[in-house]
């Protein structure tokens, strides 16, 4: 084994590199932009290298561990480590954040601060996925809220302050429950606090207490994921934020909720999870239909995509609630797949907004002729979003369906009901995504403004779209790549249940 602190470097490099931005001389934005992208790329490459050469796929245990005592007083460690569950989200984070930084090139206002915040987000997002200490998890969880808040309130749209406040109200408010739960779990056992995930896995609690802990954690993650009725911050936030922020929000931030649900609620509190899981499934199915039908009524393009994200998150909840091997694998795949698809859709919506300066769908139309490339990519991604076979979303949803079907926990009638509700969502999805496509691109329109001459997407935008499309289609054709990460870990998690 080598003891090179890979994960510490991966987590700390972006924020450390980011704080150097302020030392740069005032020489325009270009240097800062490329510097940021370089940092992102280096970090992504380090991650890829470390995972490639120092991570054994067939080992369900935690690897690349690092243990440094930080605060002696209550056994607080700087403890990192990854397993099959976190490797996918970490790679996704690296990829999406790099792409989002590249997508944020047109931002010129307060460029230093913006890019510093992007890098801080990078650290704050990889942190929760890779830490193995529950208090450290909380700290990292909070760390990423601040950059989002500032990004929202400075580079957003017209109602940015309202949505930023709403965002911080929801997420910070819910974090209280996370902290309470963490302290409860940590201080429960014996005379000295245990904060290590691995030791906590084997701990058991009295029934009522476990349920209380579970509810606390669930509340936090339900805000983040989001689960209805705690979702309303999401459309506002996504509707107002700059599209690079949206990419991070939709691509990664939402997935932290799902990750937390698996990591803490499923792994640490299995008994409570098996009590709550039927309700989770029901909630998830209602969410799919509710959010999909709400999405239909949205006039704002970004809000429509945001609601579609909410709807897709329903599948993750169902996969987590199904307590079956296939279902949980499907949920993890959906985490990855929606990370790509959601980010790409927001990116394209943003590039469209950059050109048209229109956000409402009924004002658009006929964009296909001036910008055929955006049209092509947008169509492919809408298809991916409605789970067309051959794309990653389809595999994830199919796996989740099979997960419900093969789950040993539920009765036949429950399964039928849940599957029926989900498939109704499957009918609603094409309605909103295709009508979005139709309203934006199809038809014709004589734009009233005489100077409206639109550029089609340039090489940078095309590069971003293609580099997101490749994994979407690649996973859709060869999903084993993601499954090979998670399969063993999922089995290990599920062995607690039976």
């Amino acid at each position, binding site marked *: 084994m080598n003891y090179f602190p890979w994960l510490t470097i991966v987590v700390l490099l972006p924020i450390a590199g980011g704080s150097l931005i302020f030392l740069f001389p005032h020489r325009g934005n270009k240097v800062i932009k490329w510097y940021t992208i370089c940092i992102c790329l280096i970090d992504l490459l380090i991650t890829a290298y470390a995972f490639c050469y120092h991570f054994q796929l067939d080992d369900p245990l935690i690897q690349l561990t690092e243990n440094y005592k930080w605060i002696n007083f209550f056994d607080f460690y700087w403890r990192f480590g990854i397993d099959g569950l976190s490797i996918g989200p970490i790679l996704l984070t690296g990829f999406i954040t790099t792409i989002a930084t590249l997508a944020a090139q047109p931002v010129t206002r307060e460029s230093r601060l913006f890019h510093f915040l992007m890098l801080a987000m990078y650290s704050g997002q990889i942190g929760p996925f890779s830490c193995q200490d529950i208090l450290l998890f909380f700290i990292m969880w909070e760390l990423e809220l601040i950059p989002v808040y500032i990004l929202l309130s400075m580079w957003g749209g017209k109602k940015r302050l309202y949505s930023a406040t709403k965002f911080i109200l929801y997420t910070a408010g819910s974090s209280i429950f996370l902290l309470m739960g963490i302290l409860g779990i940590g201080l429960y056992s014996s005379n000295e606090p245990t904060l290590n995930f691995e030791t906590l896995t084997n701990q058991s609690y009295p029934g009522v207490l476990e349920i209380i802990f579970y509810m606390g954690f669930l509340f936090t993650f339900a805000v983040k994921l989001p689960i209805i009725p705690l979702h309303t911050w999401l459309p506002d936030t996504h509707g107002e934020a700059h599209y690079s922020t949206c990419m991070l929000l939709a691509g990664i931030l939402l997935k932290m909720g799902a990750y937390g649900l698996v990591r803490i609620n499923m792994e640490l509190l299995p008994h409570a999870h098996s009590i709550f899981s039927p309700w989770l499934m029901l909630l998830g199915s209602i969410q799919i239909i*509710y959010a999909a039908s709400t999405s239909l009524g*949205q006039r704002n393009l970004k809000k429509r995509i945001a609601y579609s994200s909410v709807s897709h998150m329903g599948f993750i909840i169902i996969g987590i609630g199904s307590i*079956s091997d296939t279902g949980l694998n499907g949920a993890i795949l959906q985490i990855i797949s929606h990370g790509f698809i959601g980010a790409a859709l927001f990116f394209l919506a943003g590039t469209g907004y950059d050109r048209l300066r229109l956000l409402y769908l009924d004002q658009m139309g006929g964009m296909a002729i001036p910008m055929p490339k955006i049209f092509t990519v947008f169509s492919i991604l809408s298809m991916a979003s409605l789970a067309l076979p051959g794309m990653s979303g*389809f595999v994830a949803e199919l796996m989740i369906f099979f997960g419900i079907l093969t789950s040993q926990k539920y009765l036949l009638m429950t399964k039928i009901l849940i599957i029926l509700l989900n498939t109704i969502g499957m009918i609603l999805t094409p309605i909103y995504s*295709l*009508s979005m496509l139709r309203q934006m691109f199809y*038809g014709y329109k004589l734009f009233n403004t005489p100077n409206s001459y639109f550029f089609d997407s340039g090489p940078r935008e095309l590069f971003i779209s293609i580099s997101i499309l490749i994994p979407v289609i690649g996973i859709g054709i060869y999903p*084993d790549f993601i499954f090979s990460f998670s399969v063993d870990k999922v089995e290990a998690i599920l062995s607690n249940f039976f």
Partner: protein
Amino acid sequence: MEYTHQSLWIIPFIPLPVPMLIGAGLLFFPTATKNLRRRWAFLSILLLGIVMLFSVALSIDQINNNKSFIYQYVWSWTINNDLSLEFGYLIDSLTLIMLILITTVGILVLIYSDNYMSHDQGYLRFFAYMSFFNASMLGLVTSSNLIQIYIFWELVGMCSYLLIGFWFTRPIAANACQKAFVTNRVGDFGLLLGILGLYWITGSLEFRDLFQIFNNLIFNNYLNVFFVSLCALLLFCGSVAKSAQFPLHVWLPDAMEGPTPISALIHAATMVAAGIFLVARLLPLFIAIPTIMNGIAFIGIITLFFGATLAIAQKDIKRNLAYSTMSQLGYMMLALGMGSSRAALFHLITHAYSKALLFLGSGSIIHSMETIVGYSPEKSQNMVLMGGLTKHTPITKTAFLIGTLSLCGIPPFACFWSKDLILNDSWLYSPIFSILAYFTAGLTAFYMFRIYLLVFEGYFNVHFQNINGKKKNSLYSISLWGKERKQNVKKKIYLIDLLTLINNDQKFLFFNKRAYFHRINQNVKSITRLLIDTTHFDTKNPSPFYPHESTNTMLFSMFILVLFTLLVGVIGISFSQEGTNLDILSKLLIPSIDLLHQNFPNSFDWFEFLTNATFSVSLSFFGIFIASFIYKPVYSALQNLNLKNIFEKNVRKTKILEKIINAIYDWSSNRGYLDAFFGSFFITNVRKLAKINHFIDRQVIDAIPNGIGILSFFMGEAIKYIGGGRISSYIYILLSFLFILLVICSLFLFFY
């Protein structure tokens, strides 16, 4: 042959390089790719030709060696322990029939569309879509398990969506493609549920295992009959949507907004046959549940009758053919429901060739009409404006006539043999169904000849429209088409269009063209305006006032299809030799299931055949006769003199007859009121739901955080007010509380 059997998995992938290369090329090197234009078409035709050779070789092998099927496992999709999604291919007679059908029609349509689309901006896009469709259709028919079927099922649906919306600047096309996709998604919803249900019952998705386990379970009575029937019904839902059967057929007529070669290939010959294919594939499963079989037959009979009644009074030539397709698909479904898969497949083949021929013929007509009346489908496909095209497009006319005769079921042509088989079998199945089916055969002849007569007989109507009718509604002057919608002419928009046309800005030329013509077709209905677009687009054409015969490329593929239509009936004709059936189709379909002929397998009776055939043919001739009676003499003296004189004797009768005719026309031109029903019922309800949900989100759920925000704001204000920082107020409060405390204390002291 063994070696080829090993590598047959490549079949669906053979046409795939074309869309991938064109897609990548258009994204990265647009000009270079566009310069290669026709080479891409050649490449796609070549690749499809390779597949055709493959499938022909395979089917010869199959006929000679009597192999029942080839199955090969290729690779597993997931490494999950609980679930194995294995990909493989299954090639049996059913697959081979579909393979040959897809490739032959596909090649001809590709050749045809090279010319048909040659002036279109999206020429390469078109070929990319087409090749992708071919690839996924080939994948669909070779797939060996249900998940694979579902995957390709969706992919062909997507191709159909893209191709219907090919001319995306037309709002009608944009609506149509979305409608098609969503309607098909409703079917897929059933299909997926059915697949999941079957997986739950049997634990397998692979066809052979599935049938075996299923039949074992049925045999041992382990199954809940209700649940099993439900699953089968849901599976059938998928084919109902894809094959445009009764409640979910609404997308098919709208799908005619796509280019005509698409209608020939996808919406007549191959993709809509996928539903028939699926039912035929799953027939061993359905046959175990008699109620489902009856249900399939019932849906089939409704569809065939409903489609035929709707086809009676369509104005649009392609829509008319679409309803006819729907009706013929109903025949196939009926045959499947009766359990005679042989008849269904036979009709599938013959109908595919005949209908493809008809669509290509109509495409040729549309192409020649477009230069005269303009490019909007409401005009170039409007049969009211056609007429007398025999003179101008003689070859197309011959081809179209042969297709029409074949579809009507006139003896030497292909559809006669298959339709007669189905009608025969229906007589054995149920007399009521049979009567309806026979009646519809007559109707088919009627509406097909209506098309033929309107298009090719009489005089060219474009020049008569102002003379004949009222001035305002000149397009609809001929009263046979029921009532029409009156649209207000918006003068303002029209003026803008005209101005842009005059400016003729090069940058927006394509853009404006579409806009202009769409507006034209909605608003402008007088001959003068028609002349504007004629002059605008026909500078090259020496005589712009009469349609022209299409070019040789288009005629070539039509000619080949004519040959098919003439000859393809042969494969199903029985040559009774020494008491055994020797037709090719039966030989190909050895393991096929036949419910009706179980008792007398080898008794093909020529006499019975002849009597039945005479009956159906005479019905068809009756239909043709009525059609020619009504539609032929639009301008001739016959209508003005004889027809009216006959009816004038009894005025009341005439009125009743007129009422009936009007009712039928209303019924037909309103598409059986089903679209309106769906529109008012589903769409408004979904919209209402969306509004309610939006309201809940905005007003109810958001009220909580907003309330918290406002509350904390007020609290802060209140505290700010109290803690204003003025020392005098602090002292005041302090002293007042001190005073109260003193009073209370003194009271206590006083009392105790």
